[in-house]
């Protein structure tokens, strides 16, 4: 039997070839993920501001600052108040995205005339730059010239224009709505893809067994698209946690601090409050935020795994 001779060079090539194939991705991860995270972690242990870029070792003091600093006149610890606000804001935005995303996907999954047109229209908001979308929402909700107030007034639903961005609770909800609108197309498209992958024979079998449309949806469709919904919701959670543009463009964190979520607070500490803030403290806040988001991600993955095990 003829054996092809494989010298040491060939063995080396075989061993390293796989590594070479993934090298570009490893380099990419190192450059754009590991280095920035490492740099943030490094800065969080140093006293460094944009006023003085020479880092001085600070130990855990930036973390201590994050968990104790109170802005004069504000209730609670600045960082924790922002974190709490962020969790609520992300929760509200995500609730809107998932519920409306699911509803939109189900609607677009139906046999409708001009379905392709609706599907295309549904994706359009995602094509807009976020800042432009936020600006559009700010004007749409404007008290004096806004479309929403115009419609509400004409329909007689309100007697005075509503200050959507001028009152704390209204601004909190309005920015979350704008953020949900921006993120909705992604949710719709992903869930729609999930719906399309549900095997028709399963639904047919349920139909033959006499299951009502509700039973078919909740007992067959929903369990099968659950992994897609959870994965999409996970991605959306991470993105929403980092959402900056809609709030910055619409309210800049105001009125007072009603919409000052963590990204806005971190930005203010790094760029605006130079004398008592700075990059080190902003980095400590960022590190804690990353840990919080990681914990949420692990929770999601656990839920996803549980769902898959349960479905088998």
């Amino acid at each position, binding site marked *: 039997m003829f054996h092809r001779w494989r010298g040491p060079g060939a063995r080396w090539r075989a061993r390293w070839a796989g590594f070479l194939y993934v090298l570009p991705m490893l380099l990419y991860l190192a450059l754009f993920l590991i280095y920035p995270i490492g740099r943030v972690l490094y800065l969080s242990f140093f006293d460094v501001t944009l*006023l003085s870029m020479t880092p001085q070792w600070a130990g855990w003091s930036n973390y201590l600052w994050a968990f104790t600093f109170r802005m004069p006149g504000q209730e609670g610890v600045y960082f924790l108040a922002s974190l709490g606000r962020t969790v609520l804001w992300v929760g509200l935005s995500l609730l809107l995205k998932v519920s409306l995303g699911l509803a939109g996907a189900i609607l677009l999954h139906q046999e409708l005339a001009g379905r392709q047109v609706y599907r295309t229209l549904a994706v359009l908001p995602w094509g807009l730059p976020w800042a432009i979308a936020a600006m559009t929402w700010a004007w749409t909700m404007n008290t004096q010239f806004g479309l929403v107030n115009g419609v509400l007034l004409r329909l007689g639903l309100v007697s005075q224009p509503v*200050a959507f961005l001028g009152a704390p609770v209204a601004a909190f909800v309005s920015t979350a709505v704008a953020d949900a609108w921006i993120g909705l197309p992604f949710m719709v498209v992903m869930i729609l893809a999930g719906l399309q992958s549900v095997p028709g024979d399963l639904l047919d079998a349920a139909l033959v067994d006499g299951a009502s449309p509700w039973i078919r949806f909740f007992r067959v469709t929903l369990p099968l698209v659950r992994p897609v919904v959870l994965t999409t919701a996970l991605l959306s959670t991470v993105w929403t946690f980092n959402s900056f543009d809609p709030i910055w463009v619409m309210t800049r964190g105001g009125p007072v601090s009603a919409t000052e979520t963590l990204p806005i607070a971190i930005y203010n500490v790094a*760029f605006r409050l130079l*004398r008592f803030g700075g990059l080190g403290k902003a980095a400590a806040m960022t590190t804690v935020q990353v840990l919080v988001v990681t914990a949420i991600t692990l929770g999601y993955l656990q839920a996803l795994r549980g769902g898959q095990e349960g479905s088998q």
Partner: protein
Amino acid sequence: MKGRGIGLAVALAVLAGLLAWSGTASAETLRVLLPIGGGYTEEDQIAIAEAYMAAHPDVQVEMEFVGWDALWDRIITSIATGNAPDVIYIASRWIPALADMGAIIPLDPYIDEAKWALYYPAVWESVEYQGQHWGIVRAMSTKALLYNKTLLEAAGVELPMTSWEAILEAARRVHNPPEVYGFGLPANRFVSTVTEFQNWLYANGARITNEEGVATVDSPAAVEAMEFYFGALKAYAQPSPIEWRREDLIRLFKSGRLAMYTDHVFSVIEALEAGIDVGVQMVPAGPQGDRPFATVVVTDSIAIPAQARHKDLAVEFAMFMTNFENQATWDITLGFIPPMPAEAGLEAFNPWYWQVFIEGLEYGIPQAASIQDWEGVQEALLTATQKYFLGQADAETALKEAAQTINILQGVQ
């Protein structure tokens, strides 16, 4: 033959490209960071670069434009990453922070006698920090009270209004929402909200800090100014002032639905062009005022980063931008107050409305005198303003909290 012809054409094209590239590479490239928006247009600024390059064919001026909103961030991130442009356009209120960072250089060694003599002394004071001058003023503004004469005269208001009570009474008389609003009040989380409030603070003899940098914005005079401007006038303001920037109010004013508000001279010109019968007067003294009128004086300037790769060239370009002819053209076109006495004598500045703003300089107070970290101070004042406005705190409490924050920022607690 055909293939050879194509090859030759490609080779010639590559050669031509290389020649063109080598020509560009031999020119020195000057990177300039400039604002856009808020009255600043690309065309007017590019025109200066083109004029400079026409006179200096060996220099390539690359202009980068950033919205005013993002200019501060762009400047400090470029400095933090060691990639600062050669020339930067800054709000003069940023000078202390940038100078403390070692981010910009003092320009005293580059300014000759003739240049010193061109400007009002107060203009140089606006770019002075720790005994040195860190910028060359490019734009200056004072503010005044713009009013719709037709509306106020129809309401029987005596003009000009000589006291705060008279302004309040006029706003009350003319206020007829949603057709007409008595007073245009900006309370958005934006720099111009603080700037416009400063007019009233100063008119009542109050200041943000004293000369040592200690916050005095919680003084009784400041509390009274806040209670008047954001309190009493609020009843006659347009709906939801927190959503409004001063920059947005001109639209309401031009539509004839706003009786008065404080703004720049260029808004007067805009309103006149829209057919509004505009009146202009200085903000009169408040009950505790120490001068008959007051205005905040805001200047923007050209500065040279310490990291500039072509410092001498950068200085030369800055001098070119701000020479008498270019400065006059700039001020007339964009509607800024002339920072040079000789410029103020030009015919273009003769119209009555210009004179109100120019004469206002006599009663003007710099925007950020003795303030080291404007951005932080601005945030503290905006929070106080919105808290009071929303009824979350009374004026005294809101301003005391702002003063505490400002003292931390100023390092004087």
